[in-house]
């Protein structure tokens, strides 16, 4: 789960990482009030779960509350890479002497948390990594050993930070960042830029904070930070129904079990000349409830013309899925043609169950390729 800048900064603050004072605003009027409370020049920052908002006009300086109100009006409603701005963070403006880059994330390959730190922040950091890799200090932390003070020194001296005041502040920020990373079950905590003000204060000017969905049950306070309104309506419905669903732009609705098989199904649909309407993974479940939920989500997309059920039974038993499909069709009205392919655990029984019932709009195909072709055909 990705957090907004202001949410990440709230977590930073809890763990002792300095951030600028700010207020949330959802209207120009609130932005003005926030600017008044903060006093002095503020920055009006679009809160969107994507990058590039600066270039898109989503960050603006305002010297007065009036100006803050006006800028807020300009930014609210902007579409930034498909994300509509509905929240603003009004923050005390900071003078910038230097900009560093700092992050901690999972290196899934090395299976250890990885700190990355460079004094060459404020520019395209991926470019820094490519052009001058020696300027980007990387340091792994053994999760059993935990964060040790020497690791801060490795990063600080490695990045060439010479000022003792900065060294001390950054050492403390590094320790806090690791604590936040572990304490919030984060997958990523990124500070870009980590700011040094002209009078030597170090603080986080931005935050990218991603929390492990699988650990959200331990963090109800973070879980409720989710902005359900920001997602596509089908995805909101899917989350409510606990269905793994990603909306795409085609006309063949896809329903399968297992992410790999569903991805492969999308590929096969494309090879058969069709375009998938979605990615939808039933996961381990295949009972009527799960099938109904998934079908409701898929058919809520008007672009869908046919539906392809691609099931290979393992933990999911094909007979259960077959019964689930029949029950679902009994409980809801589906106009779309449905192509079903069942293989694996109890597949024969599943196919027999469907054949016995043989609802009018249901087509059972023997192989994945045959089924894909049929679904593409029926979507035309």
């Amino acid at each position, binding site marked *: 789960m990705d957090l907004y800048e202001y949410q990440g900064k709230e977590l930073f603050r809890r763990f002792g990482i300095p951030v600028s004072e700010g207020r949330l605003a959802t209207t120009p009027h609130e932005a003005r009030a926030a600017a008044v409370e903060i006093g002095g020049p503020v920055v009006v920052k679009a809160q969107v779960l994507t*990058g590039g908002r600066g270039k898109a006009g989503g960050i603006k300086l305002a010297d007065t509350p009036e100006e803050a109100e006006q800028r807020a009006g300009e930014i609210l409603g902007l579409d930034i890479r498909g994300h509509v701005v509905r929240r603003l963070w009004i923050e005390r403006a900071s003078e910038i002497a230097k900009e560093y880059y700092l992050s901690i994330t*999972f290196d899934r390959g090395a299976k250890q948390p990885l700190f990355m730190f460079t004094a060459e922040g404020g520019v395209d950091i991926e470019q820094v990594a490519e052009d001058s890799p020696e300027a980007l200090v990387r340091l792994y932390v053994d999760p059993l050993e935990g964060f040790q003070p020497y690791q801060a020194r490795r990063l600080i001296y490695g990045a060439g930070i010479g000022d003792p005041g900065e060294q001390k502040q950054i050492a403390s920020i590094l320790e806090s960042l690791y604590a936040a990373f572990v304490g919030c079950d984060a997958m990523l905590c990124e500070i870009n830029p980590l700011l040094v003000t002209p009078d030597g204060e170090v603080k986080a000017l931005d935050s*990218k904070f991603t929390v492990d969905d699988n650990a959200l049950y331990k963090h109800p306070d973070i879980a409720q930070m989710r902005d359900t309104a920001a997602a596509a309506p089908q995805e909101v419905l899917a989350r409510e129904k606990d269905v793994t669903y990603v909306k795409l732009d085609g006309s063949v609705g896809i329903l399968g079990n297992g992410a790999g098989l569903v991805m*492969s199904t999308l590929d096969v649909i494309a090879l058969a000349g069709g375009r998938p309407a979605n990615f939808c993974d039933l996961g381990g479940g295949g009972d009527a409830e799960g099938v109904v939920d998934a079908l409701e989500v898929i058919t809520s997309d008007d672009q869908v013309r046919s539906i392809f059920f691609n*099931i290979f039974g*393992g933990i999911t038993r094909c007979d259960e899925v077959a019964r689930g499909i029949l029950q679902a069709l009994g409980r809801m009205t589906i106009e779309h043609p449905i192509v079903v392919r069942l293989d694996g655990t109890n597949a024969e029984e599943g196919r027999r169950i469907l054949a016995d019932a043989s609802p009018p709009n249901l087509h059972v195909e023997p192989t994945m390729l045959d089924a894909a072709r049929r679904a593409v055909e029926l979507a035309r």
Partner: protein
Amino acid sequence: MAIIVDTNTRLVVQGLTGSEGSFHGVRNRNYGTQVVAGVTPGKGGQDVEGIPVFNTVAEAVAEAGANTTMVFVPARFAADAIYEAVDAGIGTVICIAEGLPAHEMLRIYNYIRPKGVTMLGPNCPGALSPGKANVGIIPAEIFRAGPVGLVSRSGTLTYQIGHELTQLGLGNSTIVGIGGDPVVGSSFIDVLAKFEEDAETELVVMVGEIGGEEEEKAAAFIEAEMSKPVLAYIAGFTAPPGKTMGHAGAIISGSAGTAEAKKEALEANGVRVGTTPTQVAQLVAERASVTS
């Protein structure tokens, strides 16, 4: 021989008394796997269709000689179950449970690795050595014994490919699902290295998917270390690009993580990549007929 599970496997099922645990535990036993024990705290002394249940893994090791565990407990109890198994001396952990918090799995990985423990999963379908042992949820009836090693990040996709191989008359030494969670106990490389050393395996099929850089690393490993032929399938050519926050991910891998990038990395290292499960099965069939 086969790898990871075979006739020497003596399985304890953690969570045997649950509905899924008992279904698959008994199914594994009926396949021929030596399922020697189950563990469910508080149910010690009971049995599940003749498989004795203990309160702790330590008892299952001491009294039933278990050497391998299948973890079938809910995600939030899985880390504890894995520590229990490893600390009781279990050398092979197959974690079917999915959705463990990544930080927990990270600690487990770093804890068990120096101990030489082999782990598949979390979120894996298990391992099947046809004719010898099946540990997990792989539908064994669609596979037959043979010389093809199969390793995959995906469950159902593995079955699909195994199914296609079977229809072409090909069999498998071992089918290994390494699991789909962000942090898993074994990498492609770990499993490829085992297949390289396994006398029964003549060639290997690797089934990858978009995301991460495991396939790219495996490509380099295959070129450098593998004498046996490897063929690959990658899922997700038409998948939407995953949205990522921040820059850290992209910097780490130095790879786009796309199916196309993985395909290129593999082909650059001499690994042929099929575009559909059917095609990769055909490539295996061609290669196998050349090899044998």
